[in-house]
């Protein structure tokens, strides 16, 4: 569609201040054409403000927003080649579904015949044919959501901005709409910038994720990278479930070694660059990377970390069993083991176990980060 080397959206060192509050703090991003890009963060992280600056609803205090290489400057929303799906859908209550969807084309002076044809196509795309004459208040939440999507997509924007579009839907509908949105995005090939606070949603849908907190972008990357190689404690904590073990750094460099409060030595695959030997730190490990062994069957040597503990809780979850293991030194770990590998592998409450995981699955972070 357009030159692939020019980003669909680029933010250059963008800052947004509201009076004394810094909402967005020196954010730089490049979003490729056709990409499904998620801005992920808790509320107040600046993700919605970032989106609103791309749409032109807010102007950056510093820095620049470019769309397809073109600086947007002070351009108002109605002059930008982007469209938005709002959090509450913002459908016009005094217009029918068809009038809502036609609004953008009508404002740009597209001939009536063409508008009618394209509205029909859009209703087809979002599976709402036959709903032309209805009014927004007669639709369910999911239907309103699809009208909002059609109303934006009919304009064939360079970029579609979505502000928590599934936030108001119930869980089951949300899951279905996630798949539907992703399929529609692949079908139309438009760049999506998707704001969400739901890490699972971002991981499922996005090609790349930017994790934001306190107005800063902490990490940008494809979901597996952000999930498996978080670079700050916040990212490790915010995305997925993680075990945190308080440790002291023994050695950094080509190999990283830390000491737990309970006296166990752990090897780590990665440590935050600013850490030095002797510093207090946190070792993070995903629960699904850990295994449990009885003391006599635990593997010796090799690239494994081992800590001893006692099973405190056993929770059956259907697909897996979750164990809470109490370690020496006031710390506990969550371990998830798949169900159905034979009775020998079900551990009992109070049992003495060894928790084993690959040392490369261990990442060490600064405590204050």
């Amino acid at each position: 569609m357009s030159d692939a080397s020019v980003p669909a959206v680029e933010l250059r060192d963008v800052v947004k201040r509201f009076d004394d509050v810094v909402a967005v703090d020196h954010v730089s991003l490049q979003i490729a054409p056709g990409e499904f890009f998620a801005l992920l963060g808790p509320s107040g992280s600046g993700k919605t403000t970032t989106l609103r600056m791309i749409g032109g609803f807010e102007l950056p205090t510093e820095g620049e927003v470019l769309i397809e290489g073109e600086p947007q400057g002070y351009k108002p929303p109605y002059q930008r080649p982007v469209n938005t799906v709002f959090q509450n859908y913002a459908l016009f209550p005094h217009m029918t579904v068809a009038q809502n969807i036609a609004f953008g084309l009508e404002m740009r002076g597209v001939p009536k015949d063409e508008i009618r044809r394209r509205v029909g196509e859009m209703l087809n795309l979002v599976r709402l044919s036959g709903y032309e004459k209805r009014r927004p208040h007669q639709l369910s939440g999911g239907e309103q959501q699809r009208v909002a999507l059609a109303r934006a997509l009919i304009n064939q924007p360079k970029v579609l901005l979505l502000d928590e579009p599934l936030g108001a839907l119930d869980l089951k509908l949300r899951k279905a709409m996630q798949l539907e949105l992703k399929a529609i995005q692949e079908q139309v090939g438009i760049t999506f910038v998707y704001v969400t606070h739901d890490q699972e949603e971002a991981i499922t849908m996005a090609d790349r994720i930017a994790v934001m907190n306190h107005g800063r972008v902490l990490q940008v990357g494809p979901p597996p990278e952000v999930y498996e190689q978080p670079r700050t404690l916040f990212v490790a904590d915010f995305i997925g479930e993680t075990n945190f073990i308080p440790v002291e750094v023994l050695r950094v460099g080509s190999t990283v070694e830390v000491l737990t409060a309970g006296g166990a030595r752990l090897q780590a695959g990665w440590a935050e660059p600013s850490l030095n030997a002797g510093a207090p730190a946190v070792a993070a490990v995903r629960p699904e990377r850990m295994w449990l062994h009885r003391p006599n069957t635990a593997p010796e040597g090799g690239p494994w970390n081992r800590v001893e503990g006692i099973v405190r809780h056993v929770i059956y979850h259907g697909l897996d069993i979750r164990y809470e293991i109490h370690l020496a030194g006031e710390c506990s770990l969550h371990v998830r083991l798949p169900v159905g590998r034979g009775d020998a592998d079900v551990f009992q409450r109070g049992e003495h176990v060894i928790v084993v995981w690959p040392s490369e699955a261990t990442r060490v972070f600064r405590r204050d980060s």
Partner: protein
Amino acid sequence: MTASAAKVARQHRTRHWLRRGLFVAYGFLGYAFFYLPIVILVIFSFNDSRSVSKWSGFTLRWYEAMLQDHQIMVALWNSVFVAVVSTLIATVLGTLAALALERYRRFPARLFADITLYLPIIIPDIAMAIMLLAFFKLSGIGFQTWKVSIAGLRLAVPYSVIIGHVAFNISFVAVVVRARLAQMDRTLDEAAQDLYATPWRTFWRVTLPLMMPGVLGGALLAFTLSLDDFVITFFTSGAGFNTLPVRVFGMIRKGVTPKINAVSSLMLGFSLLLVTLALLAARGNEDRKIQMF
């Protein structure tokens, strides 16, 4: 034990009905206090007697007399003319004021504008009337008249009366429109702008249609207030100009006749109709099904 329980239950029942009865009686008294004089007024406008206190049969002759009274008819059309013109002006200005205060949160002297807008609602009519009178005298506007002929009658309406009515009606329109604007979703305006509508087209296609129930409600309220106004009209009209309330006041000094009852009943009916319309328009707020175009 069961006997005493039954007794307690009986006591509760008695108290319950006593409370209920008192409540209903109190309600009736309240309504009687408010509306009995009005009902009597309306009934005696159909009384076939000069006496205002003795019923002697049904007639429509007071209404006929009213229609044939040239001065009353002039006063009636004066009232309507002043109400229509002042309502149109006040509705436009009041709506703009409401938009400014509700939508553009930051402008110099916003708080000042906010407070002064409500002043005409709060200050007594008489104070406002004297202020206006002084203003028209000092400014040299005086009591020049706008000459029009309606329904075969030649009217001479002082501009000062129209300006005076606009002055208090702006506030009422602004209050009603603001209430409507406050409950409107502002992202609708953003959505329109996102869909290539300039601020101008956003206003005509989205903002105005959605705030229309408030604008209509405000206009009807202004119209009613203008029709019913006595004090401000009386002070700002100079000599020889009558609206209906002013005319009734003049007639009443010569004694109460059933003709006055007829005029008052007419005004009452008209006001009730307008207030009902205003309420229905405001009700459109909740009923999103209302079709604007």
